[in-house]
């Protein structure tokens, strides 16, 4: 195992270091940073936008670029959090608290550098963790039957509910609505056309790119247009980038703790960058000797969550690569990207396509190196970008989204669908219904139905099969426990507080 880890990583670097993959990795991380810096467009909309373009790339190149966008966005998000007090990315929400205070005290440089160093360290560690834990997990997953898969998906969806803001019942309802929307189109078992109402374009189902772009892209633009454009940028204050010796003494432990916590939370179904950064900030505030300084410009409050969100972003690839189960909305899109390329996501990817698997892991380390080398010198450019007013930004985003969606199948119907889902997404925002669980349900809908059917066929219609198989029972019990804990009033209050803090 240990020796094969090295040979596997060597194989991966062989793939990741080819000129074309290096180039697309660079494009991915730069784009990721760009959209991370810019508030109002996130990795979900960007990856959805770029999916059609990846048709023409080889699978590994496409995935390397898309992955780069996700972790690149974590770097970029911290820049606008520190300089403008606006989280460019939802996972940078907690970075605003202390990062912006540091910037106001004239210490924007060290804050930015701390975020970059923390992210890079976490990225390196997370790459190794993915390489170490993915193979044994995939091995276990190879033994999964339909009942295990079904129960695992239930757990993943429940976890998505845990992460949603606000009402639990509403989040569960959003998951179910997503599952239902995912069923539109031809039923693979019977060939019956469901919920298509004679629309020929719906035979293949609703495109998840159009759903993602509508709900996360169009709806977001409409919501942003309601707010007045008000930003305050600390452009002149970024001098003296490097943290002092004293700063280093203060940040190394928080970075270590943030990395460890982020890596763990990223692996959980439903986890990822967002949960990790919140968790790390809360933990650090509790145990740091400078805990009382938090919220007033404590450098530890930047170091820990920034390390954690990057670690979490990367380890959230573990469930995707080993089980084929997305743990968050971005991973759901990565599944879509794999399917577009004709790759069925799941444990067999590692054995059948080792180049793809290890190449992607190695590219994460390469991408992190690029980010830390490029980003600090490029901070001036990102600051300039932040001064671009939204009235210039949003028509540009809209044009790229429209082009991306249209090129899916050269059909105006896709653009119409995106618009309709944009309206629906806007209604969701107004009614405080979170869209991320819907997208997860949407992706998992057909898979869940398929596995449910198979499991029930094998068990001759006995639903207890899900509790008789130990692994499947474990997943279901974990899901039930999660839901019960969520319903407990004490914890509910804690969860609301945690979201309040952002």
């Amino acid at each position, binding site marked *: 195992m240990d020796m094969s880890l090295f040979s596997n990583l060597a194989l991966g670097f062989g793939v990741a270091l080819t000129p074309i993959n290096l180039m697309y990795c660079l494009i991915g991380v730069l784009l990721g940073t760009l959209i991370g810096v810019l508030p109002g467009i996130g990795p979900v909309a960007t990856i959805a936008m770029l999916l059609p373009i990846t048709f023409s790339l080889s699978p590994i190149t496409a995935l390397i670029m898309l992955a780069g966008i996700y972790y690149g966005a974590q770097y970029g998000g911290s820049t606008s959090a520190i300089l403008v007090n606006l989280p460019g990315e939802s996972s940078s929400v907690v970075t605003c608290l202390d990062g912006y205070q540091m910037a106001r005290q004239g210490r924007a440089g060290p804050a930015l550098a701390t975020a970059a160093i923390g992210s890079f360290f976490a990225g390196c560690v997370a790459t190794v963790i993915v390489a170490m834990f993915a193979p044994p997990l995939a091995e276990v997953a190879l033994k999964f039957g339909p009942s295990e898969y079904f129960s695992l998906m239930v757990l993943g969806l429940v976890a998505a509910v845990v992460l949603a803001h606000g009402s639990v019942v509403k989040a569960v309802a959003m998951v179910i609505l997503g599952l239902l929307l995912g069923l539109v189109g031809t039923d693979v078992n019977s060939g019956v056309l469901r*919920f298509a109402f004679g629309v020929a374009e719906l035979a293949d189902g609703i495109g998840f790119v159009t759903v993602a772009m509508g709900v996360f892209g169009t709806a977001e*633009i409409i919501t942003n*247009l309601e707010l007045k454009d008000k930003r305050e940028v600390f452009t002149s204050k970024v001098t003296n980038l490097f943290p002092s010796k004293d700063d280093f003494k203060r940040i190394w432990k928080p970075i270590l703790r943030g990395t460890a916590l982020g890596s763990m939370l990223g692996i959980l179904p439903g986890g990822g960058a967002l949960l990790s950064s919140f968790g790390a900030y809360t933990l650090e505030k509790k145990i740091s000797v400078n805990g009382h300084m938090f919220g007033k410009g404590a450098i530890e409050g930047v170091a820990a969550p920034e390390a954690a969100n990057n670690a979490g972003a990367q380890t959230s690839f573990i469930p995707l690569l080993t089980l084929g189960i997305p743990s968050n909305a971005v991973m759901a899109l990565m599944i879509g990207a794999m399917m577009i390329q004709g790759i069925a996501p799941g444990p067999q990817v590692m054995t059948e396509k080792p180049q793809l698997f290890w190449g992607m892991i190695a590219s994460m380390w390469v991408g992190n190196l690029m980010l830390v080398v490029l980003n600090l010198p490029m901070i001036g450019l990102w600051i300039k970008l932040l001064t671009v007013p939204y*009235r*210039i930004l949003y028509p540009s985003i809209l044009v790229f989204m429209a082009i991306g969606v249209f090129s899916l199948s050269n059909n105006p119907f*896709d653009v119409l669908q995106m618009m309709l889902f944009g309206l629906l997404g806007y209604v969701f925002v107004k009614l405080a219904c979170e869209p991320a669980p819907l997208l997860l349900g949407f992706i998992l809908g057909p898979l869940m139905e398929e596995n449910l059917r198979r499991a029930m066929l094998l068990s001759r219609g006995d639903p207890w099969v899900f509790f008789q198989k130990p692994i499947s029972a474990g997943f279901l019990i974990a899901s039930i426990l999660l839901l019960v804990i969520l319903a407990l009033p004490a914890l509910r209050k804690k969860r609301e507080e945690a979201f309040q803090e952002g």
Partner: protein
Amino acid sequence: MKIKSPQDFWAGLMFIVFGLFFLIVARDYQMGTAVRMGPGYFPTVLGGILAVLGAVVLLTSFTMSGPKVPKLSFKPIFFISLGLILFGYLLKPIGFVLSVVVLVFVAAFGGHEFKLKEVAILAVILVIFSVLVFVKGLTLPFPLWPAFLD
């Protein structure tokens, strides 16, 4: 009874409508049995659950107080939607260049202020950039100009 949480009231209603919609339409598909599920089985079960959850949300809106539904702003909704539809359905008849211009101008009306010169410059830049990147670079099969000019 008085609605104490309008947001939950409308959300609950929305879930009920969606749930019943899927439930009723799924009646046209075969249910099958638990062993061999027909195309109607899964959607019927899910539609039912969704409607019940919607009812729960709706009922709690009468007992627990919550925030109001924020005002909808129809100006951005209208112009963003219109811009997208025009882009989609005009692309083939009038070509890529003009439909990008149409989208930029219509979308710009949805914002707080509309500066003709600024929007015009933005449209030109976006046209040049997207033609170079998407049509020339990525060779997407879009007609550049209206059909009658070709």
